[in-house]
């Protein structure tokens, strides 16, 4: 047994795009304990929501996270619509589903790149992000923003996306499938990648359930947990949604779940574009919010939870968001204990941490 060293991991660290701090207690190169601490980028967005009226608030809440910004906007809007007791037009719900799934494609491609960078495969990283750029261009064309879309509002969408544009989006995405497959096959089949990921950081089904893991982390351990199938949200029910499941629970399984979800999202988008009805995308909503409402959303990283309580005016009394990373940190700490130092980036990245979501 070697002497114990503590390696500070973060808050500023090349592996992490966002600030989280881990004290890695090492014996030689084996991590015996990982002590996480968060709180570096708390911005008080929930409090800010209380002093902005519900139209302005959507722009605030979208900025919780740059990757799943559409999901956050939709989640908050859905909880406020619920509190008001209104239902957005069907076309708006379809458009929201399409953009949300497009957001998942872009989030997972970004994450695949970061993971490749985590195990030192820089060329794979660059190719993942090159493909993701096409998705961002689709976003820019249809919503006006590459990262923050500002297209969701209470009562529907601010802008319609024309059927021609949707058709073009479908064509682009179907064409992108081959390119994505070329890249993701490397993740699955390359021996040097397998060497780093297979059997690393195993989280059993029991552990995943006990530690309340959500999203791809839970699904990679065989827990069929996906809000898109349990909740009556968006139009997933009409698209024939089935969650992606893997059994192994290691880093590779978590990667495979996300890779399969990329293709699944593209299929969902295509199906939604095929059956999207014509009609209005916006409706008049009451000018005040009363009552309270809870919404659950399946973000790219897992289940997110939104609670809105109206103050009987244009303002909210309370807005509460709970994000998936928050729920996955216990699972991460669990897998970190006993891991190799070289595996730490893989273990931290495979929960796809979004710290700015977690701290808001």
């Amino acid at each position: 047994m070697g002497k114990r060293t503590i390696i500070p991991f973060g808050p500023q660290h090349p592996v992490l795009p966002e600030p989280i701090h881990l004290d890695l207690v090492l014996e030689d190169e084996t991590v015996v304990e990982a002590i996480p601490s968060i709180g570096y980028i708390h911005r008080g967005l929930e409090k800010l929501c209380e002093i902005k009226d519900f139209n302005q608030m959507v722009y605030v809440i979208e900025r919780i996270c740059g990757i799943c910004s559409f999901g956050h906007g939709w989640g908050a809007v859905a909880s406020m619509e619920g509190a008001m007791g209104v239902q957005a037009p069907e076309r708006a719900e379809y458009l929201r589903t399409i953009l949300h799934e497009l957001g998942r494609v872009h989030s997972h491609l970004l994450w695949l790149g970061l993971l490749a960078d985590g195990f030192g495969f820089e060329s794979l990283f660059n190719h993942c992000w090159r493909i993701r750029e096409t998705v961002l261009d689709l976003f820019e064309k249809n919503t006006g923003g590459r990262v923050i879309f500002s297209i969701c509002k209470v009562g529907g969408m601010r802008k319609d996306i024309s059927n021609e544009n949707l058709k073009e989006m479908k064509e682009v995405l179907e064409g992108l499938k081959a390119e994505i497959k070329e890249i993701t096959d490397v993740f699955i089949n390359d021996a040097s990648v397998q060497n780093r990921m297979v059997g690393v950081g195993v989280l059993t089904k029991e552990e995943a359930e006990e530690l309340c893991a959500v999203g791809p982390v839970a699904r990679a351990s065989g827990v069929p947990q996906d809000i898109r199938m349990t909740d009556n949200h968006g139009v997933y029910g009409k698209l024939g949604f089935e969650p992606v499941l893997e059994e192994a629970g290691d880093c590779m399984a978590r990667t495979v779940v996300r890779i399969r979800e990329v293709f699944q999202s593209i299929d969902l988008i295509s199906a939604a574009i095929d059956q999207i009805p014509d009609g209005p995308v916006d409706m008049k909503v009451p000018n005040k919010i009363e009552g309270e409402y809870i919404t659950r959303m399946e973000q790219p990283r897992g289940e997110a939870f939104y609670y809105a309580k109206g103050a009987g005016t244009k303002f909210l009394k309370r807005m509460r968001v709970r994000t998936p990373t928050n729920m996955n940190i216990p699972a991460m700490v669990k897998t970190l204990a006993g891991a190799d130092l070289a595996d730490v980036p893989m273990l931290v990245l495979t929960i796809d941490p979004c710290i700015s979501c977690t701290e808001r």
Partner: protein
Amino acid sequence: MIVKAVISIIAYLVLAPLVGGLLAGLERKLSAKMQRRVGPPVLQPFYDVFKLFEKEKMAPTRFQDFYVLIFVVFVIASGLLFFAGGDLLLVIFTLTIATAFLIVAAYSSNSPYAEVGAERELLAMMAYEPMVLLTAIGFYMYHGSFNVRDILASDTMCLLPMLGIFVGWIFILTLKFRKSPFDLSMSHHAHQELVRGLTTEFVGRTMGLIEISHWYENVFLLGFVFLFFANGTAWGWVIGIVVAILTYFVEVFIDNTFARMKWQFAFKASWIIAIVLGMVNIFVLYLCY
């Protein structure tokens, strides 16, 4: 004879950093091409080093700069011995001492990243050192001398009888150049669990000196590749230089097609290669020459 040695020493001192820096620039351009990027200008490594020299001087301990200086001197010295036609064994030992001083410099900083990086560099040394020695022994077995001068003067190309050793040497060059899959102790891309590993605590001038000595080191490691082709004719020289440069780009290609492996894998792989290819090749040489 002496005049010739002096000329090659001066040529090495002046040209090696230029060639090394240019190779590094071309490497970055080529890597960018492989990743569908435009990439930096070819002269970017020089700009980087010039900038490093302008940076504020800062070091956790006074000794660190001293150790790094010794590292630089020994790296250049080992190159000088090589290009002056000296003893291969001496060259190898000088280079090992140089690396040892870099490791000591990293240890002296007391930073956890640098310390773990230094430990990994030690492991990497243990991984590649047998193959380096076997290469020198191979040259001795074939040419009957450890002297670079004698090897260059030989009139037969030693590539074929030493093919196994050649492949083994290419393999450990990945470790020496610190490219994926074996960029364990420090990476050129800075993205890893150890931040920048071995060189985390070096800044400014010190870091600039380390960069330049890496250029020196790279050039004379490629000089080893050249030795396999030398047969005293112009034709041998041309092939040797072309293959040496090609080798560098093969390393870039390998860098771009591999994930970073753990030290256990690096250790096992390089010892297996050294034993299988190196020892068998030495045995064949023993039987035939």
